[in-house]
């Protein structure tokens, strides 16, 4: 659906894009993650040529759009909608008129515009705000209007520029669910850029990591934990496994005793087996679960457990061995010295 090949873009003294290749399949939600200044915003704007790359090709639907004239480019943009971090609604127009804007630009008839808006407002749950002005709406509602506006011309591609970065976590979740819904409903291809791994984790099928103008990794979300290394993997892992509480980490020692603290990492079907209770029974071992977290990465479930064992060195070795056999990732974090824990 979208093919970028060999994109380069340099501003006065900074390199924004360095030989970027990217392929986005039809119907996919593709997330590009990177810190601010990594070039992701420039990359997104190259897809609809709001930014013209210095070199390279942008191919949409098997057609190169890099060398279109102004008129053809405007036509091409009608099939690509965009939503923004700060929503960019027109303050002077009502919700209705904001959604109508792209259709008016395309010269659609009034009845057609009205029926399209009647269809879109329930989808974004804003029926009763039809005649409200943006200033009367909350951030989440504004982004919903922007999404309805983006959908009004039945685009094939939706470009999201940090679409949830200005929203609180709860609203972010509802906007992401809406994006997911329209992706399924219309088979819309979505490209989003974000600096929040959480956004990628929640809705993307594919992800790419950008650093200093380059794409350093691309992979399906479901395979993010296939390697033990990698930028995306580390970011996801850090999020899945939060740092130990201070009281716990302060009482850890490297000197072995009979209270080892371990971190177990489950992936895929491993996460659904009652491993702990079985092991506890089989080895006659007391396992104290201190921290647990589980999450879903597209189709794959992963989880992390931090456990304290009441075990001597021999029993610990048996336990570790058993974990490895079950394909769990084990890490001995240290030994608990605090008698209260």
């Amino acid at each position, binding site marked *: 659906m979208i093919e970028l090949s060999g994109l380069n873009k340099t501003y006065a003294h900074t390199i924004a894009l360095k030989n970027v290749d990217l392929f986005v399949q039809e119907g996919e939600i593709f997330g590009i993650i990177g810190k601010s200044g990594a070039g992701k915003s420039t990359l997104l704007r190259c897809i609809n040529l709001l930014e013209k790359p210095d070199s390279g090709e942008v191919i949409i639907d098997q057609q190169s759009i890099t060398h279109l004239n102004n008129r053809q480019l405007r036509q091409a943009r009608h099939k690509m909608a965009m939503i923004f971090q700060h929503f960019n609604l027109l303050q002077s127009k009502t919700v209705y008129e904001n959604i109508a804007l792209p259709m008016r630009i395309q010269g659609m008839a009034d009845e057609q515009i009205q029926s399209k808006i009647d269809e879109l407002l329930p989808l974004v749950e804003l029926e009763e705000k039809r005649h409200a002005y943006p*200033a009367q709406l909350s951030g989440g509602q504004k982004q919903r209007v922007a999404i309805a506006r983006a959908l009004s*011309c039945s685009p094939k591609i939706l470009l999201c520029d940090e679409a949830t970065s200005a929203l609180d976590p709860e609203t972010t979740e509802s906007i992401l669910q809406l994006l997911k819904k329209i992706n399924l409903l219309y088979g819309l291809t979505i490209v989003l850029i974000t600096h929040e791994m959480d956004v990628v984790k929640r809705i993307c099928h594919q992800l790419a990591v950008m650093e200093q103008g380059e794409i350093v990794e691309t992979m399906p979300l479901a395979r993010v934990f296939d390697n033990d290394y990698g930028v995306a993997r580390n970011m996801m892992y850090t999020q899945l496994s939060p740092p130990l509480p201070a009281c716990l980490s302060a009482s850890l020692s490297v000197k072995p005793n009979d209270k080892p603290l371990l971190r177990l990492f489950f992936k895929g079907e491993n996460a659904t087996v009652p491993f702990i209770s079985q092991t506890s029974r089989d080895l006659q071992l007391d396992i104290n679960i201190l921290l647990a977290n589980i999450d879903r990465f597209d189709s794959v479930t992963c989880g992390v457990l931090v456990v304290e064992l009441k075990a001597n060195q021999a029993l610990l070795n048996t336990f570790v061995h058993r974990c490895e056999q079950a394909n769990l990732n084990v890490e001995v974090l240290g030994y608990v010295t605090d008698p209260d824990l």
Partner: protein
Amino acid sequence: MSLTLIYDLLKASAETLYMTATSTFFAVLLGLPLGTLLFCSKAIKPHPFLYRSISALINFSRSIPFIILLVALIPLTRLLVGTSIGINAAIVPLTLGAIPFFARLADNVYQNLPSGLIETGFSMGSSTWQMIRHLLLPEAFPAMIQAITITAITLINYSAMAGTVGGGGLGDLAIRYGYQRFNPLIMIATVVILVVFVQLLQMSGDKLAKHFTHR
């Protein structure tokens, strides 16, 4: 104060209002497109040569003191109105003086629009004209009303100056009766009327702008 003086004051006030209203109308009519062109040649469809030319032209005409413009434009005024004396004649230099002023204000209004607006328009695939019509003008409208108010107030001032070279209006009255005939009452009366005009204009401009601001 005699009846004739009151009549003179009323007549002069009406003349001032007429000059201000007419020249504001033409200044906006011609200055808005100029200001829009100035902004678009920079931010929407960059055309550095066009932009620099318009900008230089505006700066040039704004740097001429109005009193000089008034005299310098006499041949043009004769050509357009047939005479260089009277309130209709004064409208020509007033308008020409205010066009670049308003164009610059309009450009400023556009520049103060949120930066994402133009990008949004482009992402929708709008042409330059559609951008102006559907995005820039509606969004700039309340601020444009305030720019028009500022222009009108400036023109009240200028029209008083135009009066001194035979333009009529309150300025003319103030000079002839108040200054040359040492009549402080007339002087004060004209100033009071001008203050009231300016206050009323500013108030109604603000009110109108607020009415169209949906925040």
